[in-house]
């Protein structure tokens, strides 16, 4: 059995990497991927806890998070496409028409 601190620690690190990605990358699709990375990190946490508590709930969370991720990816990518059509922009910092 893997000590939960290890898995959870990994989860935290991956989460952090995802967060950094959202903050520093410009390409909107990469941003999307970084969000997916964050969700993956969370999934790891759920699995770890489920394993350690002998519980099924965490696993179901993972299942549903994946569903959500899928739907988010679909809509997110559609937004990206739509944005690209409207603005020809794929870089997050170019999308700042609305401000102030």
């Amino acid at each position, binding site marked *: 059995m893997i000590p939960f601190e290890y898995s959870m620690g990994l989860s935290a690190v991956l989460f952090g*990497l995802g967060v950094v990605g959202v903050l520093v*990358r410009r390409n909107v699709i990469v941003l999307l991927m970084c969000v997916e990375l964050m969700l993956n990190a969370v999934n790891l946490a759920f699995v770890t806890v489920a394993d350690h508590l002998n519980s099924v709930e965490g696993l179901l969370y993972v299942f549903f998070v994946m569903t959500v991720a899928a739907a988010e990816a679909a809509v997110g990518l559609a937004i990206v496409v739509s944005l690209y059509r409207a603005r020809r922009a794929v870089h997050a910092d170019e999308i700042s028409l609305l401000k102030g």
Partner: protein
Amino acid sequence: MTLAIFFVFAAFAVLGGVGVLLARNPIHSALSLVGTMVSLAGIYLLHHAEFIFAIQLMVYAGAIMTLIVFVIMLLDVRHEETESERLGFGKVIGMVLAGLMVVVLLVPLGAGLTGKAGGMTEEVLARVGGVEFLSEKLFTTYLLPFEIASVLLLVGLVGAVALAKKRL
């Protein structure tokens, strides 16, 4: 032994994550992410989550990432990111904060897992197996979330159509 495997997977997962961050080409980022996901799938297996292992590979690494790569191709974004080398003040702050966030997330681990759940005990698993138990739960206790998930997917579908369909 298990622990060693874990560390290998963990190393790959982190490397993949770093790869997502550093790769200039979005396709490379996507591939790095797939790497991370596969590594994670391995770790799931170590955590006795066979079902999750499977869908992680199929849904995540497979379907979702394929979709992403597809869109990258669709948009055909040639001009690669050039600014990544330039570290703005905001980005440094962002990284520092993200580091702090990780610390903040690590701190609670000292408290330990205090929850008392049970349910998926050794006996149960021995009797019915992990996947069967999980699916039984999914269609009984967790039926409602499951149904909501279906609506969620419907929303994703309709939303994607509404946004991206050429003529609407």
